[in-house]
């Protein structure tokens, strides 16, 4: 998946930033530095996709960032992990404004708080919704909200 030379350059330039260099998994605290390097030095100007993955087995949420260069080529994916119980990651909106809505989506559906996000609110669900429905342990309730909402 990842563009090999870019990944190699990235791991070589920031050797201390990685929790798992093979998967390009950064420490949460080093994420902004990685992002800046990726954008400014490697030329990946676009954060094209931000995905949160709930790793229930390890009790962590992984956030995968796919970045692409306007010059072309396959996207580069780097990631960071945060404990499910207190999911927090630094926001990358300052680096890529395009992260704004995507971080809100991850916050809404997975409960990952992005520090430094200018407007971190729920995006799809209503504000007093409890829970984060895309987490793997969120109960799948069928059509409870259609007719059974009065009870429970």
């Amino acid at each position, binding site marked *: 998946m990842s563009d090999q030379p870019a990944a190699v350059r990235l791991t070589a330039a920031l050797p201390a930033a990685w929790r798992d260099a093979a998967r390009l998994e950064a420490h949460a605290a080093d994420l902004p530095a990685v992002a800046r390097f990726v954008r400014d030095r490697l030329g990946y100007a676009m954060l*094209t996709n931000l*995905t949160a993955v709930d790793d229930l087995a390890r009790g962590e949420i992984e956030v995968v960032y*796919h970045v*692409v260069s*306007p010059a072309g080529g396959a*996207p580069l994916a780097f990631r960071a992990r945060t404990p499910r119980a207190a999911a927090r990651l630094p926001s990358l909106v300052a680096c890529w*404004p395009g*992260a704004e809505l995507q971080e809100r989506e991850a916050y809404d559906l997975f409960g990952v708080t992005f520090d430094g996000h200018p407007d971190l609110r729920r995006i799809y669900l209503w504000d007093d919704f409890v829970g984060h429905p*895309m987490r793997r342990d969120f109960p799948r309730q069928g059509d409870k909200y259609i007719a059974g909402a009065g009870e429970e």
Partner: protein
Amino acid sequence: MSAHESQLLQVNIGPQHPSTHGVFRMEVTLDGETVVALRPVFGYLHRNHEQLAEASSYIQTMPYTDRLDYFNSMTSNYGYALAVERLAGIEVPQRASYIRALMSELTRILNHATAIGFMINDMGAWHTALQFGMREREKILDLFEMASGARMMCNYFRFGGVVRDLPPEFLPYFDQLMRGLPAFFDEFEQLLRDNEIIVARSSGIGILPRDVAAGYSVTGPVLRGSGVPYDIRRAEPYGIYGELAFDIPVGSVGDVYDRTLVRFAEMRQSYRILQQIRERLPDTGGGHINPALANFGKQKALRPPAGEAYARVESPKGELGFYLVSDGSTQPYRYKVRAPSFINLTPLGAMCRGHLLADVVVILGSIDIVMGEVDR
């Protein structure tokens, strides 16, 4: 600044509004008619598509991808099929790839024709441009129905190919359509392109400069309208796009007018691609689907090895990406849609600030969103 005191006016455009292209809301703060702030509000069509997919087997999600961008179900199918094929390492026969590209480019023409029409409607025209676009769209939908059985919710793609080969009546109809398309392009352009009012309403409006457009992650005609020649068909060719000759139209200013012109030019480029595909289609081999997966039972029981894959296609609205994580079971562990309509809305507030209320709907129209994809 005026000497008299004035109050700001809060206006909710949507969720029910003629020009929000679905159930979408914009909280607009107005000073007179000038937009001071604009906040998009999402979620009225949210149906947790991703969770649904994580609770279904891989093939069961295919018809749901039709409902993402219900104008362009073919490209949505394509993106999802591509992601699963990468995940599971499935080969696609040459003929299937050609059919897929053919459907994608037809989709692009129908999307752009109606997208321009809808945008002109947002400017206040009385459906004429839209009707002309719809007329051509109907013909393309006829083709889709012949091939897939449905006009809009095509569900035509399968892992490793497409559900069935083109029926015998398809190509004659297609050839006739192709003969008519250039006249349609010319007339559409004549009707719209030199129209002073359209030029006045769209040039200088909603400018997204070249140097910030990429940072906002916008893709598709919005990004190209800003002058960035980024097209996934060339940046990371999929299917047979590496073998096809086409140009990437880009704008120079990055305003609504440029986006419209880019769409015009892309329709002509799609026409060019379709000509090439039509020329080579009879010589292609390999059948319409990978023989290993031709039996539907194989599709149903697909268990991709554990891993992850991200595949993206150039949908008419921009980069449509699918990110899949497999744990080796029949259901994806994580299924994520990178929806172009959704992410292209990121700079909406910034683009609208300082413009008039009338420009807001035009800017929104020039982004070309579909709520099925925005809210998922």
